[in-house]
């Protein structure tokens, strides 16, 4: 028996029974397509939430004054003044797992330039703030250590601030604007970051040396917060421990005293969000798994039923001289053709449906190659197995038993 003939036999059997071939294929198509779409939706929402968190900054650690407020206990206003510049210097000089650190003080007020004004918040930070928040200066320059030492009245502004104060265009660099009554010279413009996923305008910012804000605007000696970046995400926990011990030492806290500061990390936030999206992905994976099982059972049934109804055909083929191996090869070729074709169509429909979800329902989708592979392989292997296995049983029958099969 040669392969060409077997291939021809299988092709003839398929083309003479197009409906049966199509129905068998349908099970595979549905299985593959639904798994790909489900996983694309699940992975898509996970990825979009991860992106939202990532855009906040790089491995951020946020230190706030006052004990952990999650208990809901009201605190003495003096508790909000526990972070000092000393703490910032020590973290900057001694912190082992930190790549950037910046103090944080801010004040809200009115920005004025000529006849234009806009409400805004001015942030007092150090140069490291750019690294921590993944910002960069597009035009002009960042302020210098010199500016920090002299509490220089200079500032860096975001695109929205520029648009609000200079609606007629013109280079903002070198212009002097006023924050409330204090003049600030613009020395740089930040590269636009657009809106974040929560809908907040990330370009509506104005940065100035922290010393300037503390002395000239707020007239305080304490910090409203300290922001840091851990060197890598994995070092976040070590960095927090390190910072905690520095701060406890600086604040002279006794062994049993609770922290008079609170540390939050981006990683903490991200794992919190991840657990939510993971739950959703698990849910979708369950649905996908169920569709896969249902698809598999469908494939199994049609393949099994078709071989049962084809037992007489198998008997006839054997009676005119087909050997068991010829029968098996024929059914295997048929099953492979059906399953692989169905699998490919399923991948196309699954990817297509994912994009429909993206463009019609505006859900984030993310198609991973492993999910395409997984569903394709599972369905085609199921199809091939259940095409082959009952044929193997039928081919083992005596021709006369098979031909009389009812």
């Amino acid at each position, binding site marked *: *028996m*040669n392969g060409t*003939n077997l291939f*021809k*036999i299988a092709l*003839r*059997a398929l083309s*003479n*029974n197009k409906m049966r071939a199509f129905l068998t294929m349908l099970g595979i198509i549905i299985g593959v397509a639904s798994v790909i779409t489900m996983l694309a939706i699940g992975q898509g929402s996970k990825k979009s939430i991860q992106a939202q968190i990532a855009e906040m900054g790089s491995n951020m650690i946020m230190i706030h004054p006052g004990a952990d407020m999650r208990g809901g206990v009201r605190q003495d206003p003096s508790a909000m003044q526990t972070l000092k510049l000393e703490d910032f210097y020590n973290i900057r000089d001694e912190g082992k797992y930190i790549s950037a650190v910046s103090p944080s003080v801010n004040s809200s007020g009115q920005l004025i330039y000529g006849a234009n004004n806009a409400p805004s918040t001015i942030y007092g930070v150090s140069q490291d703030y750019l690294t921590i928040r993944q910002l960069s200066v597009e035009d002009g320059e960042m302020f210098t250590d010199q500016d920090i030492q002299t509490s220089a009245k200079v500032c860096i502004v975001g695109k929205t601030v520029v648009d609000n104060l200079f609606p007629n265009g013109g280079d903002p660099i070198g212009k002097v604007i006023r924050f409330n009554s204090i003049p600030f010279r613009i020395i740089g413009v930040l590269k636009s970051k657009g809106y974040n996923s929560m809908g907040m305008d990330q370009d509506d910012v104005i940065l100035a040396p922290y010393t300037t804000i503390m002395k000239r605007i707020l007239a305080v000696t304490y910090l409203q917060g300290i922001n840091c970046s851990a060197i890598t995400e994995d070092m976040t926990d070590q960095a927090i421990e390190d910072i905690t011990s520095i701060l406890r030492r600086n604040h002279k806290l006794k062994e049993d005293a609770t922290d008079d500061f609170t540390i939050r990390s981006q990683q903490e936030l991200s794992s919190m969000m991840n657990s939510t999206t993971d739950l959703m992905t698990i849910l979708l994976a369950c649905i996908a798994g169920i569709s896969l099982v249902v698809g598999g059972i469908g494939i199994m049934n049609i393949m099994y039923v078709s071989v049962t109804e084809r037992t*007489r*055909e198998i*008997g*006839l*083929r*054997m*009676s*005119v*001289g*087909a*050997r*068991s*191996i*010829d029968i098996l090869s024929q059914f295997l070729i048929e099953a492979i053709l059906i399953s692989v074709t169905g699998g490919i169509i399923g991948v196309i429909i699954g990817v297509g449906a994912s994009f429909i979800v993206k463009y019609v329902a505006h859900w984030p989708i993310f198609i991973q190659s492993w999910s395409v592979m997984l569903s394709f392989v599972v369905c085609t292997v199921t199809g091939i197995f259940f095409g082959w296995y009952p044929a193997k049983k039928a081919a083992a029958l*005596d*021709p*006369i038993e098979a*031909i009389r099969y009812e």
Partner: protein
Amino acid sequence: MSKAIIELKNIKRNFKVGDEIVHALRGVSFTIHEGEFVTIMGTSGSGKSTLLNLLGCLDTPTSGEYFLDGVSVRTMGKNERARLRNHKIGFVFQSYNLLAKTTAVENVELPLMYNARISAAERKEHAINALIAVGLGDRLMHKSNQMSGGQMQRVAIARALVNDPAVILADEATGNLDTRTSFEILVLFQKLHAEGRTIIFVTHNPEIAQYSSRNIVLRDGQIKEDKVNENILSAAEALAALPVPIED
């Protein structure tokens, strides 16, 4: 005397049904020579089909010797018997057993599909010739579900002819057909016989024995009678003598 195509020596075939053993054949011996048209008769359950299946290598005897064209079948493996069926035997079933929704040509080509030595062109040519021989030269591309019972049985006979077998075996080949169509099929078998083919035709209809060259009668798995027919009737004449059907 021409050469022996089939030699049976004390063939027995038992079936196990639950705890009981059914003796379908209780020791059958005969020799059939090239060019004979043998009818095998007997009542229902007398063992005709069992015998024919053994002759067709679809089944193996419990004991006894069977030589087909000089080769011992008893010692053969499954694959060798498949090869033997492919090369030496043409089987015609009562229920036609055509491939569903498949054209006459493709149905007739089927045995040759399992013979690698025959090219696609030869295969098609043989199939068309066989269909012409059974009078279906104008129905080559008709599908099995577009044909009448008589036409389907002709396709099945063409399929049995296409590999130029040593013997054609027919099990109640006219059993599903009306009288007129049965005679038409019988005419066809007589024509094949006249061309020198060896035919074994199983039937429970005693009338048909008159049109064959030899008649073997089975009863309870044994040969009751084995007679050469000196006066072979012409099926064509019998067909002509049939009353003309009112319709058609």
